[in-house]
């Protein structure tokens, strides 16, 4: 098992072209999200990202007065 894995690994490193072809065919076989699913992901991740970012930035704003106090 280990030997076989090592072999495949060498193949991947030695022949980038083959890896590229395999990867490409893998990508084309992939089930891709449709527009509705995609928008769902973007919305969910986006809302979470912005919400956390705004809270985080509010905390960082506290640093500005602190900077003047301790530095």
């Amino acid at each position, binding site marked *: *098992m280990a030997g076989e*894995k090592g072999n*495949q*690994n060498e193949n*991947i*490193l030695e022949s980038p072209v083959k*890896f590229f072809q*395999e*990867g490409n065919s*893998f*990508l084309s*076989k*992939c*089930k*891709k*999200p449709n527009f509705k*699913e*995609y928008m*769902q*992901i*973007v919305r*969910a*991740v*986006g809302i*979470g*990202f*912005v919400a*956390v*970012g*705004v*809270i*985080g*930035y509010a*905390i*960082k*704003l*506290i*640093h*500005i007065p*602190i*900077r003047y106090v*301790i*530095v």
Partner: protein
Amino acid sequence: MAGFRLIDTVKPFLPFLPEVELPYEKLQFDDKVLYTVFIGLIYLFAQLPLAGIEKDIVPTINDPIYFLRGAFAAEPRSLLEFGIFPIFSTGLIMQLLAGLKVIKVNFKLQKDRELFQSFTKLMIFVQYFIFANVFILAGYYGTGLTIFQIAVLNFQLVGAGVVATLLVEIIDKGFGFTSGPMVINTIAIATNTIADIIGVSQIKIDDEGHTEAQGALINLVQGFRAKHKTILGSIVSAFNRDYLPNLTTAVIVLIIGAVVCYFQNFRVELPIRSTRARASNTVYPVRLLNVASLSLSFSYSLLFYIHMTAFALLTLVGKNDPSNIVCKILGHYENVNNILAVPTFPLSMFAPPRSFFGGLVQAPLSFVVFPAFIIVTGVWFAYKWQGISGQSARDLAVDFKEQGLTLAGRREQNVAKELDKPISLASATGAAVLAAIAIAGELLGLKGKATSMVIGICGGFSLLELITLDYQQNGSGSSLSQVLGAPTNM
């Protein structure tokens, strides 16, 4: 020496290493959410400015790792100068070494697992100490520091490192979701992205005392009433200023985020059937990004070590003097905009260019070596990692057998072999795709923001996935259901 194991060397230090206790009982969903969010916020708050150094120091050397900071939540000239880099990289590399059997650990033994964790922790503290002192000695915090100042700086930098390590450990030990570094990274990256776009803090940009807003969008609005510039000039500057985030990079970063979101749900569905019940065919999804952004983080960890070593050699041995022999071999640092220390050839080959067109002229080799490095290390890591992370084809085959499942149209004995091909291909391809997205952004001159965005979105997605899953399973009775809505299938 027979029976010598690296992890045993930690034994004398065991009584001194702080440790987080495992939770006594399984935590409620609400508690886990709170722990996760608050640890991220505590981390952000801990990015306090350093005390004990001059306010307007003139450092002999500027920030040499500016393009690596985004990926590790590191804030320049703050307590968390190195962010979670030592935690992340040491954890990752130690697990990789243990998985590849370079370090002998028997994970079935409780004692060995504890020793392994303690050893990793000790390595983390040692690295915080080394990095802090390299920066201090190199003159990053100004020259002519007294011994007292050096001690205070050491105390702050290493102490903050210890606190960050423990914060990460709290999440890792089951108080929060996913892994500690991922939570902290995601929250810090989200914050930085928001700060780059709508940050309102005013930053001094020249000696005459003019200030500009940190956020690109705010800067554009402010530009209309700036007195020292024409309106057209300020609009142009809002899109291409080099010293602070500009609108062009903000837009590229958002595009990168959208592209990464698109790839998140790529999967190949293998038809499986039950060996017990007839006619119950389902599919098993193999996700393209099953290693997520770990591969990219691994490449950046290696880059960080390369640049840290080079920085130590160039500044401590070579004194950053172009005529010194070390600097002739490795290149030296040039000050840019008074904030960045940009390496010159040949070290520059391992750094992304600062701008696309400027880079093409000045450092054409960066456009070959840097991407090649990221892709090769990323794909190698993803390939190795999927084999040792507990989701390899062999583990999966065991799971399948327990649940009485098998691949449709294949012999039951060959399941592990048949699974191996799509899973390892998916990990390697996924790593290559993520690397390609990050590189495309980096070559456009994003100075690490592209990579951090890729890591941030991947982290955000897996957090969201896990929280949704947990919410569906034990979220009933959660007081957060008003906010999150009824449990739905995401």
